[in-house]
């Protein structure tokens, strides 16, 4: 009797601990975070058969059907440039210039990894849709309740969110050294 209870206990507690560990390691870090460039994080082995079981599990949950890095690099930001978690009630600003890539886009996702509902049906800004400054650079407002004048805007709901920066057919410098290429900054402007 005693032994049966102990075996059951070891199985139940062990299973719970094992699943908790899986939840813990796959629930954070987006698709993998072995490369950080400011707030932007990525993994170099996403989508490739070389990816380790942990990266593969994370990608399955947060970026299923991602392409390998020669084709597309996916940078994910869950924090601003100062390391504070992103929240849609705050207003952020992305400033930068076109990264060396054939085409890019920045998209906001809710904590469920889906696009965030909003009355304007705005989810992303891309190389071809972004409003530019006279010198060709861009400023993108993210979050908050309305679009500021003369800036592209990505609404971000009213809770935690993340941003994905996709670089399609990135230049060789980006593909080889994503840690050190210049990417747009992501600064908090205000919180209510």
């Amino acid at each position, binding site marked *: 009797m005693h032994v049966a209870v102990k075996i059951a206990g*070891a199985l139940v507690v*062990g299973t719970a601990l094992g*699943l908790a560990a899986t939840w813990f390691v796959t629930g954070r870090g987006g698709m993998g975070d072995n490369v950080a460039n400011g707030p932007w994080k990525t993994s170099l082995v996403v989508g*490739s058969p070389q*990816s380790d079981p942990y990266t593969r599990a994370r990608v399955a*949950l947060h970026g299923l059907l991602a*392409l390998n890095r020669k084709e597309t690099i996916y940078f994910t930001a869950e924090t601003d440039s100062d390391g504070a978690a992103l929240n849609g009630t705050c207003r952020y600003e992305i400033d930068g210039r076109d990264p060396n890539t054939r*085409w890019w886009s920045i*998209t906001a996702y809710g904590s469920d990894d889906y696009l965030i509902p909003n009355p304007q049906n705005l*989810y992303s800004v891309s190389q071809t849709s972004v409003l530019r400054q006279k010198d060709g650079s861009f400023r993108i407002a993210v979050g908050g309740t309305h679009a500021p004048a003369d800036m592209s805007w990505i609404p971000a709901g009213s809770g935690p969110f993340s941003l994905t920066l996709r670089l399609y057919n990135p230049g060789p410098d980006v593909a080889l050294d994503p840690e050190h290429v210049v990417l747009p900054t992501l600064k908090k402007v205000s919180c209510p």
Partner: protein
Amino acid sequence: MNERAQDWIFWIAATILVAMIVHLGSIYLLPRVVMMRALERLGAANIMHVGKRPTSASHAIVRPSPDILYATCPYDLSKGPLRVTTPVIHTSYWSVSAFDSNTDNFFVKNDQQTPAASLELVVVERGQAWPKLDNAVERVILFSPSEKGLILIRTVIDDDKHIPAIEASLHQARCETVASAPKLR
């Protein structure tokens, strides 16, 4: 050390062992289960499905890009090899990729690597004989590591005005099971 302490150490060790087995097993199984469910959600196998532009209502696959139009063909090679024929769009980023049941991206080709106006893929499992086909088209033979998987076509929407043309092109893409060539004796 008394017997009681030994007993405790044994059961703590057993619990940790169970935890490790469950953890590693779930990490291994997770992509396979996620892919299996995604293939079911994407619809019937061996048929091309052309998706609408993703919105907040699109929940088939996590983190869809609203700047891409997708066409998908979940495949099952149990009844024979798969033939995919698709026009190639050269006006913006276009690619066709293949994923196995483990979520690995085992093939991708983009428009810059495909100057031809159309492309044909023949997907076979290792050991499966591929069909006898004519030599008139640009064709790639793919070896799928698993019986089930997914063909995914992406086209970037560089301008909303181009959506009807991109959709029309994706609707011309085909995906079908073909008979294997008879085995040589």
